[in-house]
């Protein structure tokens, strides 16, 4: 059956027309290579200057909150991968932590260390990906290739751990499923030892690059009150003068035991955000070195537990399931019916690479969450474009979208 082309009544599809007042409406996206996903922007232009911007989202909407209401808690874990698919372990972690807080679980120390390693590797992957794509949008092809090379190395390490490169599902409610593989630490050390030189290479290419500076400096300035009002978090907020990092302020896992700095800037422009991403990579490397030491101490102290012991909620270790009848029964019930957290609600925020990733869970004591709200940082980092873009020029749009670091799996959910 032939598709009738003009049957699709357009809302704004591909309209660009001159009006009486000399205003041009430009439709940017939803298929635009530098929109980092399915972002559609309706831009009102006076000459080249934007007078009004209207971001339109929803092209990747999969209804994850609805899906969560119809899935048992463990079933939802792989779905969280598809939110911020650049750093999917951080989504797994946010969800796992929220359910653990709801139940009141304490995760074994070794699992906490492995989780921190995964989280920081994900942060590095996300920041490298950000650098690569943003540099590519602005025309720096070399940086793109360099940063992807390093990201590939990290993806290989994670592939060795969980078998997946993008959608890891590497964290379980109550701990981690596996210990890290034999060469994990060797490979990670290799990578971390080279990283400072790699970051220096990127900076040599960009920091004094005239084109880069022209596209970045004094462009896309977000004042502090605007960042707060729009719910900006993560690097977007820290570039606008608020040194707020949830890892530091409301520490989860073992972040209160590691030493790291929270880079921030009061400039609020694209360049400040770029500098913060670069500095955060260095801080992540610092944290990773410390987690390696912590892991080695766990090995020496013979702390082998990887999952919390809570028979009502968490399956027993594989060995017990295969040898103990009662563990097998419990495992069967947990897989077929699902765990039933207590009645109550919880909101847990974690610092994902993009900002504050929050999970609000309302449990009514059943195996399905009654309501689950995903607070994705990119949602408001897209919304802020409404107020941020007016006054800028068309080429700035690409640079600004780049530095907001939005991922549409997370915006649309």
């Amino acid at each position: 059956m032939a598709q009738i082309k003009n049957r699709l009544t357009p809302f704004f599809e591909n309209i660009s027309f001159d009006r009486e007042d000399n205003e041009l409406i430009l439709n940017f996206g939803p298929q635009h290579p530098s929109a980092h996903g399915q972002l559609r922007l309706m831009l009102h232009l006076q000459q080249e200057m934007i007078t009004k911007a209207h971001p339109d989202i929803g092209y990747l909407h999969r209804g994850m909150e609805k899906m969560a209401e119809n899935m048992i808690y463990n079933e939802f874990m792989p779905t969280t991968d598809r939110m911020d698919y650049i750093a999917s372990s951080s989504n797994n972690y946010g969800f796992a932590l929220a359910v653990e807080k709801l139940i009141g679980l304490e995760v074994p120390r070794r699992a906490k260390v492995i989780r921190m390693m995964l989280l920081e590797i994900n942060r590095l992957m996300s920041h490298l990906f950000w650098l690569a794509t943003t540099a590519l949008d602005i025309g720096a092809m070399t940086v793109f290739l360099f940063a992807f090379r390093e990201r590939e190395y990290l993806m290989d390490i994670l592939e060795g751990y969980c078998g997946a490169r993008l959608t890891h599902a590497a964290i379980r409610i109550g701990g981690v499923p596996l210990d890290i593989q034999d060469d994990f630490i060797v490979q990670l050390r290799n990578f971390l030892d080279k990283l400072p030189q790699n970051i220096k290479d990127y900076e040599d290419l960009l920091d004094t690059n005239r084109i880069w500076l022209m596209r970045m400096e004094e462009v896309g300035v977000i004042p502090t009150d605007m960042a707060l009002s729009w719910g900006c978090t993560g690097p977007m907020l820290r570039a606008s003068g608020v040194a707020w990092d949830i890892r530091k302020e409301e520490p989860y896992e073992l972040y209160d035991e590691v030493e790291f700095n929270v880079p921030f800037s009061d400039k609020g422009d694209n360049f400040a955000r770029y500098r913060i991403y670069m500095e955060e990579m260095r801080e992540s490397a610092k944290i990773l070195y410390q987690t390696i030491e912590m892991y080695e101490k766990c090995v020496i102290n013979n702390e082998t537990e990887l999952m919390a012991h809570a028979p009502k909620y968490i399956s027993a270790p594989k060995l017990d399931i295969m040898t103990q009848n009662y563990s097998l029964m419990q495992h069967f019930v947990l897989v077929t019916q699902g765990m039933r957290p207590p009645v109550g609600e919880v909101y847990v925020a974690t610092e994902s690479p993009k900002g504050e990733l929050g999970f609000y869970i309302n449990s009514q004591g059943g195996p399905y969450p009654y309501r689950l709200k995903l607070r994705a940082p990119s949602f408001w980092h897209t919304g802020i474009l409404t107020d941020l873009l007016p006054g800028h020029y068309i080429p700035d749009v690409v640079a600004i979208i780049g530095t907001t670091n939005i991922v549409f799996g997370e915006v649309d959910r």
Partner: protein
Amino acid sequence: MRAYKPKDDVQAKAYYTDRYYVAPQVPKSDVSEDAVFAADLEAIQAKFEVKEAYIQVEQMVVYINAHDIYGVLKFMRDELSYTQLSEMSAIDWLAKDDTFEIFYQMLSMTKRKRIRIKYFINNGEAVDSVEKLFRCADWSEREMFDMFGIQANNHPFMKRILMPYDWQGNPLLKTYPLEGDEFAAWYEVDKIYGKEARDVIGPEIRDTARVDRYDSERFARLGHEVPKGTEITGDEPANPQEYQEEGGVFLIKKYTKESSKIIDDPQR
């Protein structure tokens, strides 16, 4: 007789629950246990009516009246330094008592505290927009409108945000099925091909796990395909796929199952 299924909540339900199962509660503690929260609550109580307040999982939950929300958030932002609205949305309690519960998740960066402000509205009522206080509520309230159909008064642009503008139904309501309703099944067919093509194309099937054994065109009948439109009886002859020319091609021998050797010695 078919089992009765309630229509006001069509979401997945536990298929078995022990009849003596009593769900435990997430512990709630009194606000007086935390000095910062106690001071905040006292300040709010001095100006507004507080229905209930407690601390649950390190965060204070405060129930207020629906009409106070703008005042409370303004007071919290200006006087109590809760400068960020992290999240807001609704919870559907229509099946229970025909109400929605609205929650606002507030964050104070100087105190390192989080407060959840909540209130109930009846079905069909609108909430007061807080977009003037927190710009992020612009998109949150649009999302709430999109997903639950709850209007926000004084909102500058009360339109759907995630679903298409001409969508019907509110996906996060408990009455809305996971696979979508009648409207959803025909939406794309009507839009792309037109209503008159409904008979030819059929409704969109959103159940990804569905296998139709009468489907003659898909993978379900691999090896037993029949021409399109043929009546399916279930005893179609096997039609094995041959992927090699008879007699093989240059350098490659024709593979036959009979000539192949099965190695059953594990040691070989």
